[in-house]
């Protein structure tokens, strides 16, 4: 493709496009196949700049992180998109909520599929967040300087559980109302607060319309906002605390025994 005579129409069009003012106003770098452009693309793109320009080869391995944090975040995004779709068809009223779900499943294009995706992605997110936490524990990645990010992660775990729990009530079927009844029946046993805790949670003497609207608002606004806020801190802190921790180093005794291993992943 060195001579202009050999260039196809597509090549010429591509070159014109890439050299146009519109393109260059959006992408202020060339295709990321040189170290300079690979750096510029990470620094100049608002979505990519969550990432550093370079990462440790060891910490990046799929068999190290199992992508669990990233998968949790992806499921959160998927749940947000499918959740907004469901909000178009759902009214949080005990009179019509159940009908909304049956209509959604039978009469709305892709309604059944999107509802299924929301349900299964929610369960998967509880699983992936739990596994992420277990993975981080075994790698000792909660140790200094990452102590506080672990605490933020515990907060995210709590928010994830309650996102799922509040969503459970919304279909207003027998599973929903009784699962939430069983769950919320524990609230009166809270020390000191007792019945007050139950009333704040349920909004009355039993799971009914006030509970539905409470859980709905928590599910679509309060908890997603809390999760987004905590995730912003969580991701920011990964960078500020020195990136992914990477595989644990060998033990002191192994080192003293003269086991020759490169000290990869050691940051301090």
């Amino acid at each position, binding site marked *: 493709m060195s001579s202009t005579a050999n260039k196809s129409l597509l090549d010429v069009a591509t070159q014109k496009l890439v050299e146009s003012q519109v393109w260059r106003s959006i992408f202020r770098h060339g295709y990321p196949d040189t170290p300079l452009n690979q750096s510029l693309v990470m620094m100049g793109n608002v979505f990519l700049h969550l990432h550093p320009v370079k990462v440790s080869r060891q910490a990046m391995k799929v068999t190290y992180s199992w*992508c669990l944090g990233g998968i949790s975040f992806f499921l959160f995004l998927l749940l947000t998109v499918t959740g907004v779709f469901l909000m178009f068809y759902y009214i949080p009223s005990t009179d019509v909520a159940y009908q909304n779900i049956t209509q959604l499943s039978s009469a709305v294009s892709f309604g059944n599929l999107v509802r299924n995706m929301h349900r299964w992605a929610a369960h998967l997110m509880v699983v992936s967040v739990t596994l992420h936490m277990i993975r981080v524990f075994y790698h000792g990645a909660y140790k200094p300087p990452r102590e506080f990010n672990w605490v933020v992660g515990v907060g995210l775990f709590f928010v994830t559980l309650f996102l799922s729990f509040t969503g459970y009530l919304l*279909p207003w079927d027998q599973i929903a109302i009784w699962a939430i009844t069983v769950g919320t029946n524990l609230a009166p046993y809270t020390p000191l607060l007792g019945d007050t805790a139950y009333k704040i949670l349920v909004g009355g003497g039993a799971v009914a319309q006030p509970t539905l609207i409470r859980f709905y608002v928590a599910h679509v606004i309060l908890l997603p906002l809390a999760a987004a806020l905590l995730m912003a801190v969580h991701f920011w802190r990964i960078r500020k605390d020195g990136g992914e921790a990477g595989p644990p180093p060998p033990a002191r005794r192994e080192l003293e025994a003269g086991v020759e291993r490169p000290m990869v992943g050691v940051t301090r």
Partner: protein
Amino acid sequence: MSIEQKEPEVQTQTAATQRRYRTLAVVRQEAITRIEKPLEDSVFVWPHLLVREFFSATIVMVMVTLLSIAINAPLRAPANVNVTPNPAKAPWYFLGLQELLHYFPPTTAGVIGPGLVLVALAVLPYVDRNPSRAYADRKIAIVTFTMFVIFWAVITLAGSFFRGPGWLWVWPWQGLYFDL
């Protein structure tokens, strides 16, 4: 990096005294940009990390879609406060707690227990003062945590698949009382 550094104009005596300074960068000792860090240990995020993220997201997306085509989300009869299902079960991730409720009073198993677990998890990095991250140096922490995870998995599985009407023990082949 892309900006060509121009040779500064020759500065006069007065310009030099009036020179103003800008902060170009603050490089902290513990920052990832530390110069002692060996460069050969790291790779560019584009493409090496991004391609992994792209494929893991794609795999999850395909999995969720296939699962959603194959299995419908459950929907039972409309809510009826007068008809209590037996057993009435919490969502699956709380079934470990519900199983504990079978053995301990509600305040202990339902509120104080999970509250303590959550607090213990949150303060873990401040309680575990062992600085080493090597597995061999962390035997107590790893054994304790593993035992906790196994205990939690066992009571969750018991509450999910081995409990039937009246919260009596039921083998899975005798009947499943489990909704997702």
